[in-house]
């Protein structure tokens, strides 16, 4: 099972990224745990500077911008 984390302070871009992740997981019908991290201390543990950040299985895939559905699909199919 994939673990997908979306890190960000709750800004519109973060919400869009989270929504895109949910949509892709639904479309692909895969089992995944989707975690939203808005806590600043938790974010600082990952050395996050620009948000939102998309992490899959603890690897940063996208940072500082919205992750689009197509690219999320690509990451999840890898």
């Amino acid at each position, binding site marked *: 099972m994939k673990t997908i984390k979306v890190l960000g302070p709750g800004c519109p871009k973060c919400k869009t990224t989270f929504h895109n992740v949910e949509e892709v997981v639904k479309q692909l019908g895969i089992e995944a745990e989707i975690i939203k991290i808005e806590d600043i201390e938790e974010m*600082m543990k990952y050395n996050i*500077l620009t*948000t939102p950040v998309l992490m899959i299985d603890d690897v940063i895939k996208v940072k500082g911008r919205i992750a689009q559905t197509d690219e999320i699909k690509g990451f999840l199919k890898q």
Partner: protein
Amino acid sequence: MENQTLVKEICPTTTQRWVANGAILVDVREKDEVAQLAYDVPNILHIPLTQFEERFTEIPKDKEVVMVCKSGGRSLRAAGFLVNHGYDNVVNMKHGLIRWAQKGFPTKGDTSSILQNAATSSCCNTSSSENKKSCCIDSPKNESSCC
């Protein structure tokens, strides 16, 4: 500003004292933001957050450093990044340029837009005369509860 324990935070008034004692301000706002309105202090570095990972080594480790931005959020993340990279003398300035300008501390550029925004977003919602009064001056030990 936010509930966390990794980075020490100070208010703009305390920052003024740090600057007077030789601390360096590091402004992580983007170039266009700095062009519009900048902190006017002697020792300042501009390292936009988008370039921070590549350029953070420009910040000296042997000096006291105060991280700043517009409202204190981005600079807090940058301060956390520095702490994680072995910087011991780093603090974050809470509330950023908005509060700094509200208090009438030195800036270069046009403060009108930032003060206009602040009037609707400030947690203090104080009049300009009240803004001059620092919560830190009144209670120097009470930095953690600065508004």
